[in-house]
């Protein structure tokens, strides 16, 4: 997909363009000026440092979620549970962060991030284990685990983990050390004006994770076995690849990558555990991975496109109060349909 940039229009660009056209048509249909709307969208997402920073902040979530989907997909596993895995990762992160009072900042961040990865991986390993041992279909089990994760988070936040004396379903704020470096903090130190966005160091982590996922899949022996298993389980058996091991490793890695959404949102932006903080990023990750053809290095541009749409759509509401932000969802739908159609044609 995205790797075939060589010939003609790059596909993601074509897909993105089609999404813009779809939005313009919707706008025209409700009597708004389509070009003005597109202009507001582009300016909102890219026109100033604030919009740009928010676009990157959303893209960070989508890189993590897209990688999580892609790594599992390479093993032939359609992990629809990235959303739930990032929620559970958030619980682990919050437990570690809340307990980190007094620890040096680097240690608090490290432990909280590791806890997030372990919790996210564990939540993904259960469906993996059900598949490897019992033949439970991973699409079904991961979908169901999203509901369980969401309910678990709600219960934790209305009861055991709720801040004392608070009416809000959220934990008390993390200790000051348990917080990632924000772009705005750096800008202030440098004497520049802040962007007003929560863009933080998670973006660097996301890019590092992207490179790591690429090295794992295309350079490591385990990654080779993972891809063989994903492409042909029978050939993997012939090649002496242990299916249980591959399934568990791929799902574990997928869940650990999903935890990046929690790191960006909680350690980078919210500094406390709140309800549904991932905001559907786990599902957007499916579209991102699809657009990137499940190639880790193509995930960043694909995630950027979705980040652009998210931020642009949010900014629209200011200039066009009559236009629902749902218009971005419609554009996404068009993109997914197009990618699905392109994939289908390739088969």
């Amino acid at each position: 997909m995205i790797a075939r940039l060589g010939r003609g229009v790059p596909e993601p660009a074509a897909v993105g363009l089609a999404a813009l056209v779809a939005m313009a048509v919707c706008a025209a249909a409700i009597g708004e000026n389509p070009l003005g709307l597109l202009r507001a969208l582009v300016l909102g997402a890219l026109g100033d440092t604030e919009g740009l920073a928010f676009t990157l902040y959303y893209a960070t979530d989508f890189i993590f979620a897209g990688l999580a989907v892609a790594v599992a997909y390479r093993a032939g596993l359609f992990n629809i549970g990235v959303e739930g895995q990032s929620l559970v990762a958030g619980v682990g992160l919050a437990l570690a962060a809340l307990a980190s009072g007094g620890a040096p900042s680097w240690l608090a961040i490290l432990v909280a991030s590791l806890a997030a990865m372990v919790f996210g991986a564990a939540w993904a390993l259960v469906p993996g284990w059900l598949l490897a041992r019992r033949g439970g279909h991973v699409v079904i089990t991961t979908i169901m685990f999203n509901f369980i994760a969401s309910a678990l988070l709600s219960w934790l936040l209305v009861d055991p983990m709720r801040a004392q004396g608070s009416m809000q379903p959220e934990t008390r704020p993390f200790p000051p050390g348990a917080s990632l470096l924000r772009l705005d903090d750096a800008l202030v130190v440098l004497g520049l004006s802040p962007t007003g966005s929560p863009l933080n160091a998670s973006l660097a982590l996301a890019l590092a994770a992207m490179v790591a996922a690429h090295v794992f899949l295309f350079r490591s022996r385990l990654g080779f076995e993972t891809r063989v298993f994903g492409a042909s389980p029978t050939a993997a058996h012939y090649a002496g690849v242990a299916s249980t091991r591959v399934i568990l490793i791929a799902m574990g890695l997928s869940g650990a990558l999903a935890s990046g959404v929690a790191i960006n949102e909680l350690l980078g932006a919210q500094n406390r555990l709140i309800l549904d903080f991932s905001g559907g990023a786990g599902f957007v990750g499916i579209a991102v991975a699809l657009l990137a053809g499940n190639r880790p290095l193509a995930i960043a541009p694909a995630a950027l496109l979705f980040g652009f749409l998210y931020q642009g759509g949010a900014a629209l509401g200011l200039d066009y109060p009559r236009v629902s932000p749902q218009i971005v969802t419609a554009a996404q739908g068009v993109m997914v349909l197009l990618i699905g159609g392109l994939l289908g044609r390739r088969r």
Partner: protein
Amino acid sequence: MPALGAPPALRVFGVTKRFGAVVANKDISLDVARGEIHAIVGENGAGKSTLMSILMGMVTPDAGEIFVDGVRARIRSPRDAAALGLGMVHQHFMLVDTLDVLDNVMLGAEGGALLAAGRKRARARLADLSRAHGLSVDPDAIVGDLPVGLRQRVEILKALARDARIIILDEPTAALTPDEANDLGLLMRWLAADGASILFITHKLNEALAVADRISVLRAGAVVATHAAAATDARELARAMVGRDVDNALSRGDGPPGRTLLEARDLTARGADGRARLSGVSLSLRAGEIVGVAGVAGHGQSELIEVLAAMRRMESGALALDGEPVDAAVYDPARARALGVAHVPEDRSRHGIVGEFPAAGNAILGRHRDRALGRRLLDPGAIRARCADLMERWDVRPRAPDTPVGRFSGGNQQKLVFAREIEAGPAILLVGQPTRGVDIGAIEAIHRRLLALRDAGKAILLVSVELDEIFALSDRILVMHEGRIVGERATASTDRREIGLLMAGVVERAA
């Protein structure tokens, strides 16, 4: 025999088809008379499939004309082809396994929105055909439950039920046992005698010679020869197909076999369906010999080779490699490779290769643990170099390590698998159906290599449904029937008749 005077049932004139720079069909002209069986032979990639696709309306030719019963025909879709009386039996059956025979025959010709009337019509038609040709298949049987030979019969019935008068059979014997192939030959003769015209695509020259009236040879997209079957022989056809003399004479050293490298005692194993497939099989394999395993497909040969290669669990029995007993609990394919057992699997596309992976990835499949390919991470340069080296040694074409292996011809895929397995330097080589779906040139190369490996002291177990192959290569022949070895013969002191009887389960007399 062809009727005289009447126009041919099918006439192809000057058909040319290009795909980009490749000329798949070059000025092809041939005809098939009413009641004639016309075989088309050619290697993989010679243009047979393209010609068939053109006749069936799936591909539009760039130039040329097609006449049916002397009338110029425009075939723009499979529907046009069917209306003109052209029917095709595909190599890979186009059947819905979960439906019964009746529904499969009716599929695509239901004749209305409701099925009852169409079913009734199809049932009557099947009964007619069964009376007329002795083609009996239970219309209510589920297709997935039928053996391969009967499934093919359903395909033929499908064509006949649509009143096909020109029937194209694409590699129809590829999946059949020798007996089923014989039955098919009889059926083709029967249909021809009844006035049908048959185009019979094959790469097996002996079958073409046995069944066809005339034989056309395709090479590089062009018809290079058309002979009456009675006036030609396999040698002449092979030369036309390959473009040079094919040397069938295989030479082998006459050194005595060495020490026993593989010893199996009382192996039992079950198939995927849970049924017993191996019942107490014992065999030994010595250095410097080829042991052939003959048998009708499905009598345990596949399971035998899979158990020895550790792809299937042995339920009981004992296995020793080079005198060392093997612990069945930890014997897996990776361990088997480490112990010097190489395996060329019989189902290449399912086990031997990953079609969508580049040739380079396939060149290390199962051998990817080799530290020479990179100490901690796999080194893409080393993998490509390994692949290029294997391709050079085994003459795999094209020499394109980055091309998905699924785009290589069957023969070149198989050569790559052989190269991968053999160049790893195993002591024992387990080979299943080494030349299935492989063209003549590659068959010749593979046979020579196997004999050279034998002479070099490798122990080789050869499972094949091609008796010719077993006889050409083996020093000893084991015959399997219903999961047991029912006979063992030195190749020099037996013949096809005796092996055939053993395969059929005629019990060995106490000698």
